[in-house]
Protein backbone atom coordinates (compact mmCIF):
# COMPACT_ATOMS: atom_id res chain seq x y z
CA UNK A 1 0.00 0.00 0.00
CA UNK A 2 1.05 3.60 -0.54
CA UNK A 3 2.41 5.49 2.40
CA UNK A 4 0.68 8.67 3.51
CA UNK A 5 3.22 9.51 6.23
CA UNK A 6 6.80 8.35 6.45
CA UNK A 7 8.91 9.68 9.30
CA UNK A 8 12.54 8.66 9.60
CA UNK A 9 15.28 9.51 12.11
CA UNK A 10 13.21 12.39 13.41
CA UNK A 11 14.64 14.30 16.34
CA UNK A 12 13.36 17.43 17.96
CA UNK A 13 14.49 19.17 21.10
CA UNK A 14 13.76 22.55 22.63
CA UNK A 15 16.11 25.52 22.66
CA UNK A 16 16.85 24.63 26.28
CA UNK A 17 18.00 21.20 25.13
CA UNK A 18 15.05 19.16 26.37
CA UNK A 19 14.59 16.13 24.11
CA UNK A 20 11.01 15.82 22.78
CA UNK A 21 11.55 13.34 19.95
CA UNK A 22 14.65 11.17 19.64
CA UNK A 23 15.35 9.31 16.41
CA UNK A 24 11.68 8.52 15.72
CA UNK A 25 10.51 6.32 12.83
CA UNK A 26 6.90 5.97 11.74
CA UNK A 27 4.93 4.81 8.70
CA UNK A 28 1.23 5.47 8.20
CA UNK A 29 -0.51 4.00 5.18
CA UNK A 30 -3.26 5.55 3.07
CA UNK A 31 -6.67 5.10 4.71
CA UNK A 32 -5.16 4.06 8.03
CA UNK A 33 -6.29 5.44 11.41
CA UNK A 34 -3.43 5.75 13.84
CA UNK A 35 -3.64 6.60 17.51
CA UNK A 36 -0.64 8.40 18.96
CA UNK A 37 -0.79 7.74 22.69
CA UNK A 38 1.27 9.43 25.35
CA UNK A 39 1.16 11.19 28.71
CA UNK A 40 0.78 14.97 28.89
CA UNK A 41 3.94 16.74 27.72
CA UNK A 42 5.22 13.66 25.88
CA UNK A 43 5.43 15.59 22.58
CA UNK A 44 2.26 14.48 20.78
CA UNK A 45 1.31 18.03 19.80
CA UNK A 46 4.89 18.76 18.74
CA UNK A 47 4.81 15.67 16.54
CA UNK A 48 1.65 16.88 14.79
CA UNK A 49 3.12 20.37 14.41
CA UNK A 50 6.15 18.81 12.75
CA UNK A 51 3.86 16.90 10.38
CA UNK A 52 2.16 20.11 9.22
CA UNK A 53 5.44 22.03 8.99
CA UNK A 54 4.71 24.45 11.82
CA UNK A 55 7.93 23.36 13.51
CA UNK A 56 11.22 22.34 11.96
CA UNK A 57 12.95 19.20 13.24
CA UNK A 58 16.59 19.24 14.36
CA UNK A 59 17.20 16.09 12.36
CA UNK A 60 15.32 13.63 10.18
CA UNK A 61 12.82 13.53 7.34
CA UNK A 62 9.04 13.80 7.24
CA UNK A 63 7.27 12.72 4.07
CA UNK A 64 3.56 13.46 3.83
CA UNK A 65 1.85 12.29 0.66
CA UNK A 66 5.32 11.87 -0.88
CA UNK A 67 6.35 15.45 -0.12
CA UNK A 68 9.23 16.21 2.17
CA UNK A 69 7.72 18.62 4.70
CA UNK A 70 11.11 19.61 6.08
CA UNK A 71 12.27 20.90 2.71
CA UNK A 72 9.11 22.48 1.32
CA UNK A 73 9.03 26.24 0.74
CA UNK A 74 6.21 28.28 2.29
CA UNK A 75 3.99 28.16 -0.81
CA UNK A 76 4.35 24.38 -1.29
CA UNK A 77 3.73 23.89 2.41
CA UNK A 78 0.50 25.87 2.17
CA UNK A 79 -0.56 23.74 -0.79
CA UNK A 80 0.10 20.62 1.25
CA UNK A 81 -1.89 21.99 4.20
CA UNK A 82 -4.85 22.46 1.90
CA UNK A 83 -4.99 18.68 1.60
CA UNK A 84 -4.96 18.25 5.38
CA UNK A 85 -7.56 18.75 8.06
CA UNK A 86 -6.22 19.80 11.44
CA UNK A 87 -8.14 19.67 14.71
CA UNK A 88 -6.05 21.76 17.13
CA UNK A 89 -5.90 20.87 20.80
CA UNK A 90 -7.07 24.37 21.72
CA UNK A 91 -10.57 24.70 20.22
CA UNK A 92 -10.92 27.47 17.65
CA UNK A 93 -13.39 30.11 18.76
CA UNK A 94 -15.18 31.67 15.81
CA UNK A 95 -17.10 34.73 16.92
CA UNK A 96 -20.72 35.42 16.15
CA UNK A 97 -21.12 32.65 13.63
CA UNK A 98 -23.45 29.71 13.55
CA UNK A 99 -21.98 26.25 13.00
CA UNK A 100 -23.03 26.33 9.34
CA UNK A 101 -21.66 29.83 8.75
CA UNK A 102 -18.35 28.89 10.38
CA UNK A 103 -17.91 26.04 7.91
CA UNK A 104 -18.98 28.16 4.96
CA UNK A 105 -16.58 30.88 6.09
CA UNK A 106 -13.64 28.50 5.84
CA UNK A 107 -14.70 27.03 2.50
CA UNK A 108 -15.34 30.45 0.95
CA UNK A 109 -11.93 31.68 2.14
CA UNK A 110 -10.41 28.66 0.40
CA UNK A 111 -11.98 29.88 -2.82
CA UNK A 112 -15.12 27.76 -3.14
CA UNK A 113 -18.22 29.40 -4.62
CA UNK A 114 -21.10 30.00 -2.20
CA UNK A 115 -23.36 27.16 -3.41
CA UNK A 116 -20.52 24.62 -3.41
CA UNK A 117 -19.47 25.78 0.07
CA UNK A 118 -23.03 25.37 1.35
CA UNK A 119 -23.28 21.88 -0.16
CA UNK A 120 -20.00 20.69 1.36
CA UNK A 121 -20.78 22.23 4.74
CA UNK A 122 -24.18 20.48 4.83
CA UNK A 123 -22.60 17.15 3.82
CA UNK A 124 -19.97 17.40 6.56
CA UNK A 125 -22.51 18.29 9.23
CA UNK A 126 -24.72 15.41 8.08
CA UNK A 127 -21.79 12.97 8.26
CA UNK A 128 -20.97 14.03 11.81
CA UNK A 129 -24.58 14.07 12.99
CA UNK A 130 -24.56 17.86 13.46
CA UNK A 131 -27.19 18.77 10.86
CA UNK A 132 -29.69 19.71 13.56
CA UNK A 133 -27.25 22.18 15.12
CA UNK A 134 -26.32 24.01 11.92
CA UNK A 135 -28.06 27.24 12.85
CA UNK A 136 -26.71 27.49 16.41
CA UNK A 137 -23.52 29.26 17.51
CA UNK A 138 -20.84 26.75 18.64
CA UNK A 139 -20.45 28.53 22.00
CA UNK A 140 -24.00 27.55 22.96
CA UNK A 141 -23.40 23.84 22.35
CA UNK A 142 -22.50 21.07 24.77
CA UNK A 143 -18.75 20.21 25.04
CA UNK A 144 -19.15 17.03 22.98
CA UNK A 145 -20.98 18.94 20.26
CA UNK A 146 -18.31 21.62 20.31
CA UNK A 147 -15.65 18.93 19.82
CA UNK A 148 -17.61 17.62 16.84
CA UNK A 149 -17.81 21.13 15.37
CA UNK A 150 -14.01 21.36 15.56
CA UNK A 151 -13.79 18.10 13.59
CA UNK A 152 -16.34 19.37 11.08
CA UNK A 153 -14.26 22.53 10.60
CA UNK A 154 -11.18 20.43 9.90
CA UNK A 155 -12.93 17.95 7.62
CA UNK A 156 -15.25 20.17 5.59
CA UNK A 157 -12.72 20.81 2.79
CA UNK A 158 -12.41 17.08 2.08
CA UNK A 159 -8.82 16.56 3.25
CA UNK A 160 -6.93 13.35 2.52
CA UNK A 161 -5.27 13.42 5.93
CA UNK A 162 -6.92 14.40 9.21
CA UNK A 163 -4.76 15.21 12.21
CA UNK A 164 -6.75 15.46 15.45
CA UNK A 165 -4.90 16.64 18.54
CA UNK A 166 -6.70 15.21 21.56
CA UNK A 167 -10.21 15.74 20.19
CA UNK A 168 -11.69 14.11 23.31
CA UNK A 169 -9.80 16.24 25.81
CA UNK A 170 -11.84 17.06 28.92
CA UNK A 171 -14.79 14.93 27.73
CA UNK A 172 -16.59 12.30 29.80
CA UNK A 173 -16.52 8.69 28.64
CA UNK A 174 -19.83 9.03 26.84
CA UNK A 175 -18.66 12.15 25.02
CA UNK A 176 -15.34 10.53 24.11
CA UNK A 177 -17.21 7.62 22.51
CA UNK A 178 -19.48 9.97 20.59
CA UNK A 179 -16.52 11.92 19.20
CA UNK A 180 -14.47 8.82 18.32
CA UNK A 181 -17.60 7.23 16.83
CA UNK A 182 -18.02 10.26 14.58
CA UNK A 183 -14.35 10.11 13.57
CA UNK A 184 -14.79 6.40 12.85
CA UNK A 185 -17.76 7.13 10.56
CA UNK A 186 -15.77 9.81 8.76
CA UNK A 187 -12.82 7.43 8.40
CA UNK A 188 -14.94 4.62 6.94
CA UNK A 189 -17.06 6.85 4.73
CA UNK A 190 -14.20 8.73 3.05
CA UNK A 191 -11.34 6.27 3.60
CA UNK A 192 -9.62 9.17 5.33
CA UNK A 193 -6.11 8.73 6.73
CA UNK A 194 -6.21 9.91 10.33
CA UNK A 195 -3.76 10.49 13.16
CA UNK A 196 -5.41 11.07 16.52
CA UNK A 197 -3.54 11.83 19.70
CA UNK A 198 -4.83 10.72 23.10
CA UNK A 199 -3.66 9.94 26.63
CA UNK A 200 -5.80 6.84 27.14
CA UNK A 201 -4.26 3.77 25.53
CA UNK A 202 -7.54 1.85 25.76
CA UNK A 203 -9.23 4.05 23.14
CA UNK A 204 -7.45 2.61 20.10
CA UNK A 205 -8.29 -0.93 21.10
CA UNK A 206 -12.00 -0.09 21.29
CA UNK A 207 -11.97 1.07 17.68
CA UNK A 208 -9.66 -1.68 16.49
CA UNK A 209 -7.09 0.68 15.06
CA UNK A 210 -3.33 0.78 15.26
CA UNK A 211 -1.67 2.72 18.04
CA UNK A 212 1.85 3.93 18.83
CA UNK A 213 3.15 5.12 22.19
CA UNK A 214 5.29 8.17 22.67
CA UNK A 215 7.43 7.90 25.78
CA UNK A 216 10.67 9.70 26.61
CA UNK A 217 11.02 10.91 23.04
CA UNK A 218 10.72 7.42 21.52
CA UNK A 219 7.87 5.74 19.66
CA UNK A 220 6.84 2.18 20.49
CA UNK A 221 4.38 0.16 18.47
CA UNK A 222 1.20 -0.64 20.42
CA UNK A 223 -0.44 -3.96 20.93
Amino acid at each position, binding site marked *: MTLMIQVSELSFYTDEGRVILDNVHLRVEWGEWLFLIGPPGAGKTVFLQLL*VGELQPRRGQILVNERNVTRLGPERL*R*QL*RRTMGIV*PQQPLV*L*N*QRTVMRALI*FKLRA*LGLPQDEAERRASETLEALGLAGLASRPPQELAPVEQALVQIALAACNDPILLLADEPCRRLEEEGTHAVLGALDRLHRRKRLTMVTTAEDEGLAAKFGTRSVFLRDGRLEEGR
Partner: protein
Amino acid sequence: MMSLFGELLRSLRARSLGPLALGGLALVLFLMLLALFLLAWSGLGGGEQGELLALLDPQLTTGQVDQLYLEIREWEEVARVEFIFKEEVKAGGVKLAVPDPGTDLFRISLHNPREAAAVGERLRGLAGIGRVIASRRGSLKEILRSTAGMHALTLALLIVLGLLSLVNIRSAIRSLIISWRGELRLLYLAGVGPRGLGTPFLLLALLPGLGGGLVLVLGLYVAHLWGQSHLEALYRSLPALLNSTTVLSLALLSLGMGLGVGLLGGAWGLVALRRAIRP
Protein backbone atom coordinates in the same frame (compact mmCIF):
# COMPACT_ATOMS: atom_id res chain seq x y z
CA MET B 1 -9.58 37.23 -0.23
CA MET B 2 -12.60 39.34 -1.16
CA SER B 3 -14.93 37.04 0.79
CA LEU B 4 -12.67 37.52 3.82
CA PHE B 5 -12.74 41.28 3.27
CA GLY B 6 -16.54 41.18 3.07
CA GLU B 7 -16.71 39.23 6.34
CA LEU B 8 -14.37 41.75 7.97
CA LEU B 9 -16.56 44.64 6.86
CA ARG B 10 -19.65 42.94 8.23
CA SER B 11 -18.02 42.31 11.58
CA LEU B 12 -16.88 45.94 11.88
CA ARG B 13 -20.02 47.27 13.53
CA ALA B 14 -19.50 45.34 16.68
CA ARG B 15 -15.73 45.51 16.91
CA SER B 16 -13.44 48.17 15.62
CA LEU B 17 -15.64 50.78 14.02
CA GLY B 18 -14.98 53.31 16.81
CA PRO B 19 -11.21 53.58 16.51
CA LEU B 20 -11.40 53.27 12.74
CA ALA B 21 -13.86 56.19 12.52
CA LEU B 22 -11.77 58.21 14.96
CA GLY B 23 -8.69 57.48 12.87
CA GLY B 24 -10.56 58.63 9.76
CA LEU B 25 -11.69 61.84 11.48
CA ALA B 26 -8.19 62.64 12.71
CA LEU B 27 -6.95 61.96 9.19
CA VAL B 28 -9.46 64.40 7.66
CA LEU B 29 -8.35 67.11 10.12
CA PHE B 30 -4.72 66.31 9.41
CA LEU B 31 -5.24 66.58 5.66
CA MET B 32 -7.29 69.78 6.02
CA LEU B 33 -4.57 71.46 8.03
CA LEU B 34 -1.91 70.25 5.65
CA ALA B 35 -3.89 71.52 2.66
CA LEU B 36 -4.39 74.92 4.31
CA PHE B 37 -0.72 75.16 5.12
CA LEU B 38 0.32 74.23 1.61
CA LEU B 39 -2.19 76.64 0.09
CA ALA B 40 -0.85 79.44 2.25
CA TRP B 41 2.71 78.63 1.23
CA SER B 42 1.88 78.15 -2.41
CA GLY B 43 4.35 79.98 -4.65
CA LEU B 44 1.55 81.65 -6.59
CA GLY B 45 1.49 85.39 -6.86
CA GLY B 46 -1.37 87.56 -5.72
CA GLY B 47 -2.76 88.24 -2.33
CA GLU B 48 0.47 89.90 -1.22
CA GLN B 49 0.02 92.82 1.09
CA GLY B 50 -0.12 96.14 -0.72
CA GLU B 51 -1.07 94.64 -4.02
CA LEU B 52 -4.24 95.43 -5.94
CA LEU B 53 -5.77 93.92 -9.04
CA ALA B 54 -7.90 96.32 -11.07
CA LEU B 55 -10.08 94.52 -13.64
CA LEU B 56 -10.70 96.67 -16.70
CA ASP B 57 -13.96 97.26 -18.53
CA PRO B 58 -13.81 95.12 -21.72
CA GLN B 59 -15.26 98.01 -23.76
CA LEU B 60 -12.17 100.17 -23.19
CA THR B 61 -10.12 101.08 -26.25
CA THR B 62 -6.34 100.73 -26.28
CA GLY B 63 -6.00 104.45 -25.95
CA GLN B 64 -8.24 104.59 -22.89
CA VAL B 65 -6.28 101.79 -21.26
CA ASP B 66 -3.03 103.67 -21.91
CA GLN B 67 -4.52 106.81 -20.43
CA LEU B 68 -5.64 104.96 -17.30
CA TYR B 69 -2.24 103.33 -16.97
CA LEU B 70 -0.41 106.63 -17.16
CA GLU B 71 -2.79 108.23 -14.69
CA ILE B 72 -2.48 105.52 -12.05
CA ARG B 73 1.30 105.34 -12.43
CA GLU B 74 1.53 108.95 -11.41
CA TRP B 75 -0.19 108.43 -8.06
CA GLU B 76 2.35 108.86 -5.29
CA GLU B 77 1.11 105.80 -3.30
CA VAL B 78 1.73 103.56 -6.32
CA ALA B 79 5.13 101.90 -6.68
CA ARG B 80 4.46 99.96 -9.85
CA VAL B 81 1.68 99.29 -12.35
CA GLU B 82 1.70 96.31 -14.64
CA PHE B 83 -0.75 95.70 -17.48
CA ILE B 84 -1.72 92.04 -17.94
CA PHE B 85 -3.72 90.55 -20.79
CA LYS B 86 -6.49 88.16 -19.70
CA GLU B 87 -5.10 85.55 -22.12
CA GLU B 88 -1.72 85.65 -20.37
CA VAL B 89 -3.33 84.73 -17.07
CA LYS B 90 -5.51 82.03 -18.59
CA ALA B 91 -2.57 80.44 -20.37
CA GLY B 92 -0.55 80.48 -17.17
CA GLY B 93 2.08 82.81 -18.58
CA VAL B 94 1.54 85.17 -15.68
CA LYS B 95 1.49 83.60 -12.23
CA LEU B 96 -1.64 85.16 -10.87
CA ALA B 97 -4.00 83.44 -8.49
CA VAL B 98 -7.12 84.57 -10.38
CA PRO B 99 -7.23 81.81 -12.98
CA ASP B 100 -9.61 83.48 -15.41
CA PRO B 101 -10.28 87.16 -14.73
CA GLY B 102 -12.37 87.50 -17.89
CA THR B 103 -10.88 90.92 -18.66
CA ASP B 104 -7.47 92.54 -18.99
CA LEU B 105 -6.20 93.99 -15.74
CA PHE B 106 -3.69 96.15 -13.92
CA ARG B 107 -1.55 94.68 -11.14
CA ILE B 108 -0.71 97.59 -8.86
CA SER B 109 1.97 97.49 -6.17
CA LEU B 110 1.91 100.10 -3.41
CA HIS B 111 4.70 101.69 -1.40
CA ASN B 112 2.73 101.26 1.79
CA PRO B 113 0.33 98.32 2.16
CA ARG B 114 -1.77 100.32 4.65
CA GLU B 115 -2.91 102.53 1.83
CA ALA B 116 -4.44 99.62 -0.10
CA ALA B 117 -7.98 100.40 1.05
CA ALA B 118 -7.76 104.08 0.14
CA VAL B 119 -6.15 103.40 -3.24
CA GLY B 120 -8.72 100.69 -3.91
CA GLU B 121 -11.52 103.16 -3.23
CA ARG B 122 -9.89 105.69 -5.53
CA LEU B 123 -9.52 103.11 -8.29
CA ARG B 124 -13.19 102.18 -8.03
CA GLY B 125 -14.03 105.81 -8.72
CA LEU B 126 -12.25 105.74 -12.08
CA ALA B 127 -14.29 105.21 -15.23
CA GLY B 128 -13.26 102.03 -17.03
CA ILE B 129 -12.27 100.08 -13.88
CA GLY B 130 -14.70 97.21 -13.34
CA ARG B 131 -13.68 95.62 -10.08
CA VAL B 132 -10.83 96.05 -7.64
CA ILE B 133 -9.48 93.11 -5.68
CA ALA B 134 -7.26 93.94 -2.75
CA SER B 135 -5.40 91.91 -0.18
CA ARG B 136 -5.71 92.95 3.41
CA ARG B 137 -3.93 92.55 6.68
CA GLY B 138 -5.19 89.60 8.71
CA SER B 139 -6.11 87.35 5.79
CA LEU B 140 -5.89 83.58 6.37
CA LYS B 141 -2.82 83.39 4.21
CA GLU B 142 -1.08 86.12 6.16
CA ILE B 143 -2.02 84.59 9.50
CA LEU B 144 -0.64 81.18 8.50
CA ARG B 145 2.54 82.66 7.11
CA SER B 146 3.06 85.32 9.72
CA THR B 147 5.07 84.03 12.67
CA ALA B 148 7.45 81.29 13.67
CA GLY B 149 5.04 80.49 16.52
CA MET B 150 2.28 79.83 14.02
CA HIS B 151 4.55 77.55 12.02
CA ALA B 152 5.47 75.60 15.14
CA LEU B 153 1.83 75.33 16.17
CA THR B 154 0.79 74.10 12.73
CA LEU B 155 3.63 71.58 12.69
CA ALA B 156 2.78 70.33 16.17
CA LEU B 157 -0.89 69.96 15.25
CA LEU B 158 0.04 68.10 12.10
CA ILE B 159 2.20 65.68 14.07
CA VAL B 160 -0.46 65.14 16.74
CA LEU B 161 -3.25 64.59 14.21
CA GLY B 162 -1.07 62.34 12.05
CA LEU B 163 -0.09 60.24 15.04
CA LEU B 164 -3.67 60.15 16.33
CA SER B 165 -4.95 58.79 13.05
CA LEU B 166 -2.06 56.29 12.76
CA VAL B 167 -2.54 55.01 16.31
CA ASN B 168 -6.30 54.68 15.92
CA ILE B 169 -6.11 52.83 12.62
CA ARG B 170 -3.43 50.56 14.07
CA SER B 171 -5.47 49.86 17.19
CA ALA B 172 -8.61 49.12 15.10
CA ILE B 173 -6.73 46.62 12.95
CA ARG B 174 -4.99 45.09 15.97
CA SER B 175 -8.19 44.59 17.95
CA LEU B 176 -9.88 43.16 14.87
CA ILE B 177 -7.03 40.67 14.42
CA ILE B 178 -7.22 39.66 18.07
CA SER B 179 -10.97 39.10 17.91
CA TRP B 180 -10.49 37.13 14.68
CA ARG B 181 -7.84 34.90 16.20
CA GLY B 182 -9.89 31.72 15.80
CA GLU B 183 -10.78 32.46 12.20
CA LEU B 184 -7.20 33.37 11.31
CA ARG B 185 -5.78 30.24 12.91
CA LEU B 186 -8.39 28.13 11.12
CA LEU B 187 -7.49 29.57 7.74
CA TYR B 188 -3.75 29.41 8.44
CA LEU B 189 -4.03 25.70 9.25
CA ALA B 190 -6.08 25.25 6.08
CA GLY B 191 -3.22 26.61 3.98
CA VAL B 192 -3.97 30.33 3.64
CA GLY B 193 -0.68 32.23 3.89
CA PRO B 194 0.07 35.32 6.00
CA ARG B 195 -0.18 37.50 2.90
CA GLY B 196 -3.63 36.16 2.05
CA LEU B 197 -4.72 36.69 5.64
CA GLY B 198 -3.18 40.15 6.01
CA THR B 199 -4.32 41.76 2.76
CA PRO B 200 -8.01 42.11 3.74
CA PHE B 201 -6.96 43.84 6.98
CA LEU B 202 -4.70 46.17 5.01
CA LEU B 203 -7.54 46.96 2.61
CA LEU B 204 -9.71 47.76 5.59
CA ALA B 205 -7.05 50.10 6.97
CA LEU B 206 -7.02 51.89 3.62
CA LEU B 207 -10.72 52.75 3.94
CA PRO B 208 -10.35 55.64 6.44
CA GLY B 209 -7.40 56.87 4.37
CA LEU B 210 -9.44 56.73 1.19
CA GLY B 211 -12.44 58.31 2.95
CA GLY B 212 -10.33 61.10 4.43
CA GLY B 213 -8.64 61.76 1.10
CA LEU B 214 -11.96 61.85 -0.77
CA VAL B 215 -13.49 64.25 1.77
CA LEU B 216 -10.57 66.59 1.15
CA VAL B 217 -10.81 66.22 -2.63
CA LEU B 218 -14.52 67.06 -2.45
CA GLY B 219 -13.87 69.93 -0.04
CA LEU B 220 -11.20 71.42 -2.27
CA TYR B 221 -13.40 71.09 -5.33
CA VAL B 222 -16.33 72.81 -3.60
CA ALA B 223 -14.03 75.58 -2.28
CA HIS B 224 -12.59 76.02 -5.76
CA LEU B 225 -16.08 76.30 -7.30
CA TRP B 226 -17.19 78.67 -4.56
CA GLY B 227 -14.08 80.73 -5.17
CA GLN B 228 -15.04 81.28 -8.81
CA SER B 229 -18.17 83.13 -7.72
CA HIS B 230 -16.54 84.86 -4.74
CA LEU B 231 -13.36 85.86 -6.46
CA GLU B 232 -12.56 88.84 -4.32
CA ALA B 233 -13.08 87.17 -0.96
CA LEU B 234 -10.96 84.20 -1.88
CA TYR B 235 -8.25 86.29 -3.44
CA ARG B 236 -7.92 88.07 -0.14
CA SER B 237 -7.71 84.90 1.94
CA LEU B 238 -6.26 81.97 -0.01
CA PRO B 239 -5.58 82.97 -3.61
CA ALA B 240 -3.96 79.64 -4.49
CA LEU B 241 -7.37 78.03 -4.07
CA LEU B 242 -8.43 79.76 -7.29
CA ASN B 243 -5.82 77.98 -9.35
CA SER B 244 -7.12 74.72 -10.88
CA THR B 245 -3.68 73.15 -11.21
CA THR B 246 -2.83 73.85 -7.57
CA VAL B 247 -6.17 72.51 -6.37
CA LEU B 248 -5.83 69.36 -8.48
CA SER B 249 -2.29 68.73 -7.24
CA LEU B 250 -3.38 69.28 -3.67
CA ALA B 251 -6.37 66.95 -4.11
CA LEU B 252 -4.13 64.19 -5.45
CA LEU B 253 -1.61 64.81 -2.68
CA SER B 254 -4.39 64.57 -0.04
CA LEU B 255 -5.64 61.33 -1.52
CA GLY B 256 -2.12 59.92 -1.62
CA MET B 257 -1.35 61.06 1.92
CA GLY B 258 -4.66 59.64 3.18
CA LEU B 259 -3.95 56.27 1.58
CA GLY B 260 -0.37 56.39 2.84
CA VAL B 261 -1.38 57.00 6.45
CA GLY B 262 -4.04 54.25 6.19
CA LEU B 263 -1.48 51.84 4.77
CA LEU B 264 1.05 52.71 7.45
CA GLY B 265 -1.48 52.31 10.28
CA GLY B 266 -2.67 49.02 8.78
CA ALA B 267 0.85 47.66 8.40
CA TRP B 268 1.56 48.62 12.01
CA GLY B 269 -1.59 46.81 13.15
CA LEU B 270 -0.63 43.74 11.13
CA VAL B 271 2.29 43.09 13.47
CA ALA B 272 -0.28 41.29 15.64
CA LEU B 273 -1.09 38.84 12.84
CA ARG B 274 1.96 36.64 13.27
CA ARG B 275 1.11 36.07 16.92
CA ALA B 276 -2.54 35.40 16.13
CA ILE B 277 -1.88 32.55 13.71
CA ARG B 278 0.65 30.79 15.92
CA PRO B 279 -0.60 28.14 18.37
